[in-house]
């Protein structure tokens, strides 16, 4: 479990360039949740997630992992970084080894595991992201964009993290690649109960997968609730430079036209079912 307590971060404090990135944030991330983190560019998302695995030192406030302050002198921050796995934007830019297998083995080997365990973890991680054996000894640079990214995510999964944080994991991927990566992460989450924090600009992706959404604005948490409740306030989200899934707007337009559909339907399937129900055609299957 991660607890963020009155966390403030000011870049270049005590200089003319000082800029408060996040201000007085309180947050509890319990085990096993699938969380979406949204906010427009510069709202403080990246600063916050870097605090979650101790990459930044707070200007004030604390972060607790399993009850221990991660900035205590005797806290093992190296271990924290394997327990809270952070997948940066465009993680494929960080691939460097001669083949896929060595790249994914790099992390667990650095943890000091023996060869057997390193390889078991690497194998397991590559399977979790759906990379088939034939790619194991290929150069990561010969893979497609989506495959490269999945190899990079496997590199983090091989550290066996308890919390997986992904910053825009689908940016630049085709729709097929987008669905694959998010589908695999959702399956992984359901199977292993790992905590996932998904940072995304795609409201549709967020709506499809997460159980809780944290909205950031100007370095503060503007809202924190279940997706249906968050997206009902789509006008507020738009003011923040965000938006809602396309279905939310459709449901709203239909309600204005007098059709009693569910305003909280976020996906195509939910919207379809709701329209059929409102029209009294529930048992009418395509």
């Amino acid at each position, binding site marked *: 479990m991660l607890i963020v307590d009155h966390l403030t971060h000011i870049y270049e404090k005590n200089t003319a360039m000082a800029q408060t990135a996040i201000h007085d944030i309180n947050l509890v991330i319990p085990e096993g949740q699938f969380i979406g983190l949204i906010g427009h560019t510069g709202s403080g998302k990246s600063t916050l997630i870097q605090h979650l695995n101790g990459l930044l030192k707070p200007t004030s406030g604390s972060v607790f992992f399993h009850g221990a302050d991660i900035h205590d002198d005797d806290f093992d921050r190296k271990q924290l970084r394997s327990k809270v796995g952070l997948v940066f934007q465009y993680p494929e830019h960080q691939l460097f080894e001669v083949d896929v297998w060595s790249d994914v083995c790099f992390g667990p080997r650095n943890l000091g595991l023996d060869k057997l365990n390193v390889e078991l973890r690497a194998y397991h991680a590559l399977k979790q992201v759906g990379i088939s054996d034939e790619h194991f000894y290929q150069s990561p640079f010969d893979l497609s964009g989506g495959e490269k990214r999945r190899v990079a995510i496997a590199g983090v999964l091989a550290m066996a993290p308890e919390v997986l944080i992904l910053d825009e994991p689908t940016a630049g*991927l085709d729709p097929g690649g987008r669905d694959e990566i998010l589908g695999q992460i959702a399956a992984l989450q359901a199977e292993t109960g790992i905590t996932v924090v998904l940072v995304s600009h795609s409201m549709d992706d967020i709506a499809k997968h997460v159980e809780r959404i944290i909205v950031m604005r100007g370095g503060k948490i503007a809202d924190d609730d279940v997706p249906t409740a968050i997206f009902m306030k789509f006008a507020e989200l738009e003011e923040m430079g965000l938006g809602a899934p396309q279905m939310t707007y459709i449901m709203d337009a239909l309600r204005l036209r*007098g059709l009693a559909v569910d305003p909280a339907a976020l996906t195509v399937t939910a919207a379809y079912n709701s329209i059929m129900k409102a029209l009294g055609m529930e048992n009418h299957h395509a």
Partner: protein
Amino acid sequence: MAMGCVVDIIKTKDLVYEYIRRDEEGNVEGITRAVDEVDVAVRPGEFIAIVGHNGSGKSTLAKHINAICYPTEGSVFVDGKDTADEKHLWEIRRMAGMVFQNPDNQIIGQVVEEDVGFGPENMGIPTAQIWERVDESLSAVGMTAHRKKSPNRLSGGQKQRVSIAGVLAMRPKCIILDEPTAMLDPSGRKEVIRAVRALNDVEKITIVLITHYMDEAIFADRIFVMDKGRIAMTGTPRQIFHRVEELKQLRLDVPYVTLLAHKLRKSGVIKSDTTVLSIEELLDSLDIALPVKHESVGKSVNC
């Protein structure tokens, strides 16, 4: 060329692009054909969207339009000029400007207006005219208010609009945008697409937009769908997005509103066979089924 015929702004003829893959020691491992016999013609003022899965050849095709890549076989003409002919190189690069995915890799100036003026300055344009172009370009993308700012202080959407202004200052006939919104938040995406559409509508600049977002492709006059280096489909957005199942096969998608309408059509709720591309069109096609009609219609998600 026939009399009175408009010269295609972009034309490819049996375009093939191959690159050689080498191993660590430099031995040839194989040859990849990234673009495979592509024949396309784009008329001046058209808005083209290119969609296709990762590795389908979209970017490689686009790089041929401003002579970053040269054909292995076949040819590419920009405004009638062969890109393989070195004497046209700078003219082609000026006429066909490119905007890439990451705004941070494209902005070099310390101040917005300086960044926009960099292109014309390099072309040796007199100072007074540079400023004129900077003014016009910034105003065309709605960034005049930010002209004195440092690009570091801008949002992603604003930076991307500065990149577009930088290209505009070269007075191009055509702008190629390679996933310009992939890194942007929802409002940034809207800003950029709105700016691109305005350039097409108002300035009549030819647009080639490469995107993975199907809801951005609906604004195009025509969509090229690429697969394995070839053009797999071409047509208007309405024609293309009608082919829901085929697009899925190509790892693509249709806008969610189109998908919803498709499902409702299968269940008989929507009678008309016309492909739905916007919320308004969905409401219209549902008309008979709706109980009452109000004046106000829900806000569109489209730009």
